[in-house]
């Protein structure tokens, strides 16, 4: 297939379109408005992209699968491995299971102002989890592990709420989390941490 004539055809096409665009009468104020709009949109996109690439401001996005129907057979999400754990490198990982109608373990305690990694799975249907007034927000899709890294700036007692319709008991689906001042929090007793995230 010959490239040159195709390249020429497209170059001519683009030149034609530009000429036609210029021939359309656009009021000079509307032209200014279009420029302003593009600049404002560019500002928002710019801030978002820079924060995404250079400051790690991203939504939860690790694509990792799991068999939600057999969690009890899964080493990482076995009941005695759930909740708050500290791994050998000092990273705090919290493993939670969502299922109709609560989050398990139903009460956990974590330190404020510290980087935390949550790993959520569903044992049944679609759930969403949000800790109000924080950025701990993620969907929990059966078949996938939802991993999210975040920090809680303010100590306090927070509810952990399900925010995706998961059945007639959805209103009652919630648990508790205590955010404790960094200096007052004690890591749970060390036990061999099984499975899961390779923290970046």
């Amino acid at each position, binding site marked *: 297939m010959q490239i040159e004539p195709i390249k020429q055809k497209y170059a001519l096409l683009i030149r034609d379109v530009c000429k036609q665009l210029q021939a359309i009468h656009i009021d000079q*104020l*509307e032209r200014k*408005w279009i420029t302003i709009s593009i600049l*404002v949109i560019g500002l928002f996109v710019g*801030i978002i992209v820079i924060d995404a690439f250079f400051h790690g401001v991203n939504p939860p996005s690790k694509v990792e699968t799991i068999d939600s129907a057999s969690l009890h057979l899964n080493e990482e999400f076995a009941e005695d491995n759930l909740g708050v754990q500290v791994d050998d490198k000092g990273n705090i990982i919290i493993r939670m299971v969502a299922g109709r109608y609560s989050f398990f373990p139903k009460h956990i305690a974590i330190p404020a102002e510290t980087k935390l990694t949550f790993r959520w799975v569903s044992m049944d249907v679609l759930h969403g989890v949000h800790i109000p*007034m*924080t950025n*701990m927000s993620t969907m929990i899709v059966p078949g996938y592990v939802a991993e999210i890294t975040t920090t*809680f*700036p303010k100590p306090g007692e927070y509810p952990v709420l399900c925010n995706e319709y998961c059945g007639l008991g959805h209103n009652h689906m919630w648990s508790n989390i205590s955010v404790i001042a960094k200096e007052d929090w004690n890591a749970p007793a060390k036990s061999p941490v099984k499975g899961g995230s390779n923290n970046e």
Partner: protein
Amino acid sequence: MNEEDRKRILESPPVGAFALMSVVIGGMVVAWLFLYYGVFLPRG
């Protein structure tokens, strides 16, 4: 309204629309920056 005035109106740039839209978009920029830097990022 005579023909001359009519023509002038139809040919003149829409300064009122431009002013209104500029205020609106300015407000949106301020509100977005407030939400992003004042609410979202401080929540961790």
